[in-house]
């Protein structure tokens, strides 16, 4: 029942974005033709970071300087990386920087989002190791797993250091909090394996999160290609956001599901809260502080849930019946009664991996289009849901 997707579908995803753009009367950039094009490695293009606040890239004459930033209130903590050509000598003045030789040819990644970033930059086949083979959607990576080209290295905190040192990948992409520093990975960095602390999950906007593709671009010298693709995502997203935010009627939305009396719902500064704002929804906790999630008690969310218009991102359920199986009290919520329940599980493959967590992260325009289609069907009448589906 669940169709396996091919590389073609990935292209069509990006095409969807481009088509949406057309519908909004904006000049469409042809994003689709650049997917899968073999080349792309060049050292002339320079990328500019516009949305992400978690990293910066500086271009110098013979090297690139990458900073991964950790915002802790007023203070900003920085991890420094020198991106050097294969045989280039170390420039002076960066005693604490980790050195990454570019273009990176092999990498070990830890999360679905990392896979998506590599896929977007067209370098998914350079992934030689994964934290775990579970939850992988990318057809390229999956076929490489089947072909035995990939190694499972263990998850963060449980990494097989000996295996990693033997593999000696160009980089290890970790998803820990950057303030953990590289102390946790000292064995690896001492062995000369640069550990890049991806903190895309700490971004406060969907575009900021997606913009981490530019980090991959810098690491693989694919700035020109990635910039072009990201620009089209950005344009599509921004025109959709204009459309959504301009909607006359703003429905009330609740997110997630309580667990044992505690309801985890996105905090006001999280990228999910921003999605809701851009999709033209009213989200009760949009003015709260914090980028993670709020842990509210059931009673606090219940008054909102009883009167909300839509219930999105319901969680690990496929049907309405499964919601009341969790707790029959949820059956009283208005969106349950009216059937306005949507979950992001339309693209789940045969091993249960959900593409929302993978390509959804780098296609925020498509996710936003889905949300607008759900909340304001009249604004995007021709859009067919990609990641979301209605619970039956």
């Amino acid at each position: 029942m669940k169709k396996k997707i091919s590389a073609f579908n990935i292209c069509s995803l990006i095409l969807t974005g481009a088509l949406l753009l057309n519908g909004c009367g904006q000049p469409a950039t042809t994003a689709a033709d650049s997917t899968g094009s073999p080349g792309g490695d060049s050292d002339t293009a320079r990328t500019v970071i516009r949305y992400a606040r978690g990293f910066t890239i500086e271009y110098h004459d013979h090297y690139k300087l990458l900073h991964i930033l950790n915002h802790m209130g007023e203070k900003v903590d920085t991890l420094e990386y020198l991106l050097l050509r294969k045989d280039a000598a170390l420039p002076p003045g960066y005693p604490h920087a980790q050195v990454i030789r570019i273009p990176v040819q092999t990498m070990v990644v830890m999360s679905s989002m990392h896979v998506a970033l590599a896929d977007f930059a067209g370098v998914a086949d350079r992934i030689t190791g994964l934290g775990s083979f579970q939850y992988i959607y990318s057809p390229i990576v999956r076929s490489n797993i089947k072909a035995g080209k990939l190694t499972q290295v263990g998850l963060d905190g449980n990494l097989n250091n000996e295996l990693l040192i033997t593999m000696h990948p160009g980089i290890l992409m970790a998803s820990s909090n950057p303030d953990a520093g590289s102390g946790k990975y000292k064995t690896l960095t001492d062995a000369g394996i640069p550990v890049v602390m991806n903190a895309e999950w700490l971004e406060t906007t969907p575009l900021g999160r997606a913009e981490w593709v530019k980090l991959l671009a810098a690491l693989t010298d694919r700035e020109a290609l990635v910039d072009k693709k990201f620009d089209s995502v950005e344009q599509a997203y921004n025109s959709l956001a204009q459309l959504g935010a301009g909607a006359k009627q703003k429905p009330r939305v609740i997110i997630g599901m309580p667990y044992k009396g505690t309801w985890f719902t996105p905090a006001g500064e999280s990228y999910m809260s921003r999605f809701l704002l851009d999709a033209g929804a009213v989200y009760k906790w949009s003015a709260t502080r914090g980028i993670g999630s709020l842990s509210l008690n059931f009673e606090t969310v219940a008054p909102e849930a009883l009167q909300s218009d839509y219930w999105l991102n319901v969680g690990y359920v496929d049907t309405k019946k499964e919601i009341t199986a969790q707790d029959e009290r949820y059956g009283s919520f208005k969106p349950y009664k009216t059937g306005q329940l949507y979950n992001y599980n339309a693209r789940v493959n045969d091993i249960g991996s959900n593409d929302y967590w993978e390509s959804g992260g780098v296609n925020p325009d498509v996710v936003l289009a889905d949300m607008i289609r759900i909340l304001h069907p009249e604004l995007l009448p021709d859009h067919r849901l990609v990641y979301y589906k209605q619970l039956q």
Partner: protein
Amino acid sequence: MTNSPSGPLRLTGLLLLLLLVFLLDIAIGSVRIPLKEVLQVIFSAHTDNDTWTYIITQIRIPKAFTAVMAGCGLSVSGLQMQTLFRNPLAEPSMLGITAGASLGVAAIMLAGGNIATLYTIKELGLSGSWMITGAACLGAALIMMLVLSVSGTVKNNVMMLIIGIMIGTITLSIISIWQYFSEPELIKDYLLWTFGSLGGTSGMQLVILGLAIITGLVISFFSCKMLDALLLGENYARSMGVTAKRARFIIICSTSLLAGSITAFCGPIGFVGIAVPHMARLLFSTSNHRILIPGCCLIGTILMLLCDVIAQLPGSNTVLPINIITALVGAPAVIWIILRKNNLRAY
């Protein structure tokens, strides 16, 4: 305290206090609802504000009843354990029953990450909260059977206690191994479960939990005489016609039922089981189980309800895990009582 009123009078006083705390638990929460409206909903189940009705009838009242049952069950099973093992530190989790329930839950939550397993379970039509509860019951029952089969061959209760603790330790180690190799998100789900919660039980689950608790309490009330006899030593008990093995079997059964079902529905709630029996003994100055059991029920319930009120952090939008509060409130209470009475009897 010396010219204290008799036991029954104190029981009545506690009963009144219980009613008060029960009302307080229903009246106070994150959403401010006027007391008049609260009473109106409780007594006529009707108010003009549907949201308030929902909050009171669907959230606060089930939670309060869960607190009552958890309070009764945990403290009575703690009392039984302390009497059986004649050890002031004994508690319901001693025999590994709580660990068994945790093992069941871990099996579902952590192995659930294995997609194949999750699909199989869904195919069986089991899902949602029942799956977790069922697994916890199964885990508790499994360990209980193991403990019971051992109890048939072990001669004295001290050995039984040590074996129980060992079984619990083994069970927890298995869970730890499982956690070590699991995805962080799944571990988080499991961790949240171990913090304990009174808010996840409603409707049918409340009925089933209620039946289990009532059955367990009835068994323990009928074993009052046996428990009293055990206090005077196994030899004396034997002379009274109570065989140690049979007594042990019955007490372990009722403890398993009480602690197992509460752990299954609410997660492992600590401390109440160890603290409340001491409070009851010191308050009633008796070792008569006919008074101690209802006393434990009342004190346990009052403590649990009070903890729930505090856990809601009235006026805020968050809730603290009940397990944290029971220890934070319970431990100072026990210290205070001990310092006042300056003695601590296990039996």
